[in-house]
């Protein structure tokens, strides 16, 4: 539990939008959907590394802006017919703040 990092207040991420979080090393895409669920995955599309944070968010999915691969945010898996997976991180919401766990 010690690795939870407070990222930002929920309202800093637009509904159906995202923010990029950088830990000095890699970019992590943090998404908020219409139901205020939060998801975090590596900001790298399994196809050719496109920045998933820049895609259009819908339901619990995001579509990569480069070639249109769709990723399930709850699993990090690509939607059929594509195959591939991007690393998923744990996130939680507490008193209106978003927390991310890189562990």
């Amino acid at each position, binding site marked *: 539990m010690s690795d939870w990092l407070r990222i*930002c207040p929920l309202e800093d991420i637009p509904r159906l939008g995202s923010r990029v979080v950088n830990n000095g090393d890699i970019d992590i895409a943090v998404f908020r959907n219409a139901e205020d669920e939060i998801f975090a995955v590596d900001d790298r599309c399994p196809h050719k590394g496109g920045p998933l944070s820049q895609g259009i968010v819908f339901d619990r999915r995001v579509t990569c802006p480069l070639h249109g691969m769709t990723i399930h945010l709850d699993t990090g898996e690509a939607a059929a017919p594509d195959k591939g997976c991007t690393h998923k991180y744990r996130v939680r919401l507490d008193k209106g703040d978003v927390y991310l766990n890189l562990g």
Partner: protein
Amino acid sequence: MTTTKKTRLVVIGNGMAGIRALEELLKLAPDMYDITVFGAEPHGNYNRILLSPVLAGEMTIKDIMLNDVDWYAQNGITLHLNKTVTQIDRVRRKVIAADGTEADYDRLLLATGSNPVMLPVPGKELPGVIAYRDIKDTGEMIEAASHYRHAVVIGGGLLGLEAANGLKLRGMDVTVAHLMPWLMERQLDKTAAQMLQASLEAKGLKFKLEKQTAELIAGESGRVSAIRFKDGETLPADLVVMAVGIRPNTGLAEAAGLHCDRGVVVNDTMQTYDPRIYAVGECVSHRGISYGLVAPLFEQAKVCANHLAQFGISRYTGSVTSTKLKVTGIDLFSAGDFIGGADAEEIVLSDPAAGVYKKLVIKDDKIAGGVLYGDTTDGSWYFQLLRNGQNIRELRNHLMFGQNHLGNAGHQGRSNAADLPDDFEVCGCNGVCKGAIVKAIKEKGLFTLEDVRKHTRASSSCGSCTGLVEQILSSVVGGAYAPQDASKKPMCGCTEYTHEEVRRAIRKDRLLSIPETLRFMEWKTPNGCPSCRPALNYYLMCAFPHEVHDDPRSRFINERAHANIQKDGSYSVIPRMYGGVTTPAELRRIAEVAEKYRVPAVKVTGGQRIGLLGVKKESLPDIWRDLDMPSGHAYGKALRTVKTCVGSEWCRFGVRDSTALGIRLEKTFERMWAPHKTKLAVSGCPRNCAEATIKDVGIVGVDSGWEIYIAGNGGIKAEVCAFLVKVGTQDEVLEYVGAFMQLYREEAHYLDRTVHFVQRAGLDYVKRRIVEDAAGRRALYAQLLDALSVEKDPWAERVSGVEAQEFRTIRFFGKNETKGGSNERLAENLPA
């Protein structure tokens, strides 16, 4: 029955139409019904139309299964294989099978297909006399081919020829006996039929035309051994295949007292005269027609599922069908009325030496039908024009030479799908080869362009390979493929409504936001998808520019970041240079910015301005601030550039000041959002150095004024503009061009370029609205100016802090520091 029990749906007939209806139903309402299926055959649902390649030895039964028994189990469907339903008890609402199995229903779906017609001749029940309908028949034919020599196929239609071809490939000596003077008389005219016959003869098939069967004669073993015709001629025959037609299988329905007239009669919702009972497929009679091809049956299945799911919004109104013979090496396509008549004209291209024959029948400037033999490349295109009822007057001179002739330069000129090797890359955007497409069509049982796009991604991006993909599809599944009627096509998978219906509702019911629209139009998905959300955002803003707020989350990243994303995730910055004219001061600022931000590449773009490529997203607002130039919208479905030539100010040929007009146009229409990118150009004389006649709007100066051209395109598929009108003054140019832009904005589908819009609406229509109707033109122009009055420069807005979070990364350092004392640490929210 307790209230918690689900409604029970029983399906009779485990074939292509019935199971497609179930698939569609499960998509719409997966948990609504308790489903039971009865099938007389011992197999899961298979792709009947691919029995021909199985017979020909090109595929196996395993290849053609569409739904194996696991599929039924996974979807909780009770499957009774090998059980023929013999009775429907409509009073007690149950069906009873031959072996006594019963099932109760609340809704019943009849999908019993049809029965082959067996000629009533003596000997028709002898062993060795069969029809060609199912796996069992196919098995018997394959078996016979390994033991016997002589086969006679009665019937020279589609099915008979495919059977004959398969038997020949399996080594039999095959004769086709046909009653009519030429083959496939219901699909072909005489010329094409004779060419077909010649190439089948070259493959070793024999033909007996105008022959009526009198009798089938038994040999010593009791098996059929010969066929005798009415004229006395006798041929040896160890196998006789009757392929003389099909009859809707209505026995069960008739016995249950359902109204039948050749087929089971249904209304436009696929409901029979008993409201609890629906019917789809070949067993049906809809508006007096029974179909024998898969494409219309699938449309029926979709409508039926919609009503079973109680959506109640779609109707089946009949289909136009096309035919393609699935004999490897022979290209044949026919559709609609291919014979013509007194009120029709024919365009014929005949090259017997090359084995090519094409005939199109034209009525009232529309394609009524056609036959293609030898080169079916454009079959899908003609069929699309036919179904859409498109006016072809302007295409007429080019029609015969096909769609490619209209300017498709892509694919190294390759356009004949059948000749392509398996490793030929069909879709350059997504790197999909022909072999992968064919494999997906066969293994996954795909029938539509949408299916192929979904499963392979081919043709899902730029769309220039659509024609090739369609050809591959139709060469694999034959007439089962029908391009969708564009006017009825739903916007996307999230809704059944078309673009027009959605736009109409937005205007009529004053819908002002995306969530409101999704709710009002009963979208099937909670927040749409990447294909409908940008379209809706545009439609809303176009309808109510003052009231609707742009939704950045429903824009593709380029329009959200106001810069083009590049393949490495960096961005490009292209400021506006009105009419391609710049100043030393501007150039100096651009140079300074490029150095200060270490921009990796500086390029003069195709749109006469300068692009800074490879910029980090976080630097965008700073670069925009330092540049102090307006956005060039090079990233948007919006007005891009107005390209100009030098014009009369300097050029010794120039007759008009093209540069000044170009600048005025660009200043007036900048920031205009549109269904797709929009490019203008102005040339100062007919030498046309600005290449104005391949733009969305091109203007060419002449002695007496300005000529306005519209709907050209210099992209994947070059299109030359059509002439709209000639006007005298710059003011008039602005009014006509503005009105055309607004018409396009209001009436095109999202992602249609002007060329697609004008092709669909017709040039005559555009002229009527823009040239002939002066009051309408002024109103359109006024609407556009009104919409533009609310648009601000997006770069200046962002420099002043709008959407700041879009450009900021949340950073934190030293992950280790989080350990120890405090168990959390606020990440720093650094400005870029």
